[in-house]
């Protein structure tokens, strides 16, 4: 494990030293003279699940192809350094989080957010329904043991928001086994993942939302490197258009696309995917009455996130220009 950290850094090092551009030039002629599709790769930061439903819908319905893109969707897993891979040019696009985009920029990894899949964070803490902890504040002020990944910004946020907390944090490495056994009073959760597994096991749980607790970064965001955006703006615009269309279709009919996602991730069945899609729907679809389209990122959200991360000590200063951190492709 210690050597794994070094090996990951070494691989990233070699990638940084090598030529990073591997996408076909846009407009380059194909064999019959017609423009060849631009090859791009998107690295997911987790296994195929409904949280990426719109991406798979865009692929399945040929929307990427209509936009002149030949997209390879690369599955992720626990610990996939998706953000670093996009920042170093190993892939053109990656799914990451807004706080990761901002903190990586301070380390020289200039990412730009293109599409916020969730307008409201799906992260939170799952507790048993019978738990005495009805809020994050109550949980944090208890001496309970909670499975939560140390080092993530929302842990700092909760420590700052609820000072003097006695809660004990442990890693989430045992999956849900510790939660089911009652060894932990709460478990870090993604609304369309852990609570779904508990629902299938008929274990009633309550989800304490981090967004409602005041920390609402763009948790699942498609990003690219600043240099790629500068070189391939048209490609990025096409990619975002395809994502918007893909997500619109997925939100309207998730069942049509869940079969393929389940085939790619047999550990999550169709029933689980259907529940997940339902739970995440309102966090992805634009709020009723909003003029924003799916994926659209208001400037003030990024400003607020940057200010929060500075307060948490995750970044030294907000970016000089917040507009450099995100880019809404023209509608």
């Amino acid at each position, binding site marked *: *494990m*210690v050597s794994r*950290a*070094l090996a990951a*850094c*070494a691989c*990233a*090092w070699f*990638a*940084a*030293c090598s030529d990073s551009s591997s996408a076909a030039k846009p407009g380059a002629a194909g064999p019959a003279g017609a423009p060849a599709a631009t090859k791009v790769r998107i690295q997911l930061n987790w296994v195929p699940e409904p949280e990426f439903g719109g991406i798979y819908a865009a692929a399945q319905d040929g929307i990427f192809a209509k936009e002149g893109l030949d997209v390879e969707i690369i599955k992720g897993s626990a610990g996939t350094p998706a*953000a*670093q891979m996009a*920042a*170093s040019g190993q892939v053109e696009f990656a799914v990451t989080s807004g706080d*990761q985009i901002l*903190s*990586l920029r*301070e*380390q*020289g*990894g200039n990412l730009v957010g293109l599409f916020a899949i969730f307008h409201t964070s799906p992260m939170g803490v799952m507790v048993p329904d019978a738990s005495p902890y009805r809020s994050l504040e109550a949980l944090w002020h208890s001496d309970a*043991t909670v499975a*939560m*990944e*140390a*080092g*993530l910004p929302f*842990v700092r946020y909760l420590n700052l928001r609820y000072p003097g907390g006695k809660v*004990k*944090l*442990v*890693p989430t*490495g*045992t*999956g849900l*086994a*510790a939660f089911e*056994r009652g*060894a932990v009073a709460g478990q870090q959760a993604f609304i369309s993942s852990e609570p779904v597994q508990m629902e299938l096991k008929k274990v009633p749980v309550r989800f304490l939302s981090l967004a409602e607790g005041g920390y609402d970064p763009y948790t699942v965001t498609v990003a690219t490197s600043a240099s790629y955006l500068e070189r391939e703006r048209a490609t990025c615009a096409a990619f975002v258009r395809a994502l918007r269309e893909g997500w619109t279709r997925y939100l309207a009919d998730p069942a049509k696309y869940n079969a393929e996602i389940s085939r790619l991730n047999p550990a999550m069945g169709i029933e689980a995917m259907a529940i997940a899609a339902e739970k995440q729907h309102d966090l992805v679809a634009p709020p009723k009455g909003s003029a924003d389209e799916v994926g659209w990122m208001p400037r003030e959200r990024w400003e607020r996130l940057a200010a929060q991360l500075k307060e948490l000590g*995750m970044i030294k200063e907000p970016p000089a220009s917040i507009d450099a951190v995100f880019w809404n492709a023209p509608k």
Partner: protein
Amino acid sequence: MSTVRSFLRGAVPPAVMVVLLVAAWQVCIWAFRPSAYLVPAPMDVVRAAGEMRAPLAGAAWMTGTSAAIGFAIAAGAGVLAGSVLAAVPFLMRGLYPIATLLQMVPLVAIAPLLVIWCGYGPRTAVASAAIVSVFPVLAATLDGMRGTDRGLVELFGTLRAGRVQRWWKLELPWAIPSIVTGLRVAAGLSVIGAIVGEFVGAFAGDESPVGILILSAMRENRTDLVFAAVAVAAIVGFVLFGLVSLGGWLLLRRWHASAA
């Protein structure tokens, strides 16, 4: 004086190599200018270590303690198991291949099970350290005891020494050089085992062990801090290795050529 000279002869070359390697690392940073999140400069690592010296020191103590306890358990269990297998050939033929097979099981695969069995906290790190370091001690003990001079074994038989007497006064002393070698290997492995256990089962907070510091630093994109924590882990392993080597030297210096 000859002790000091031989210490310097052993310490100076690797120290010089470390300096040269760090210098080469810095030159590569200046030449290729990689982003900090990919590879930090040596000075950034030193700076991060300085900023976090208190947490790193606390982490080193916590991880070192877990590793040391796990190592001690592995040492006792390994010597005992090796002695039993050496004394009972049937058990050795039956259990040694199984022990070898179990040693191939990746620790990261069973670490979550250790949390379920041992609970959260240092116990998982200790168990993890013990599991990963017991086999080298077992194998070294078995090897050492099976190499006991046959003539001396017969002599002990002629003098009607009991089985335990033969083990205590002949086979175990005979195996000590081999056991010390096994303990040296186990010392480094115990730190790795402790950190793997911490990855899945340690408490995070104001005082966290090295494994949690590494995970936190990776999630915060603090590659400099990852390197600093890894360096601390290496130092802890080196200290444990050094203590075991010192113990072996003290034990063997008067009568075994390997400690000359």
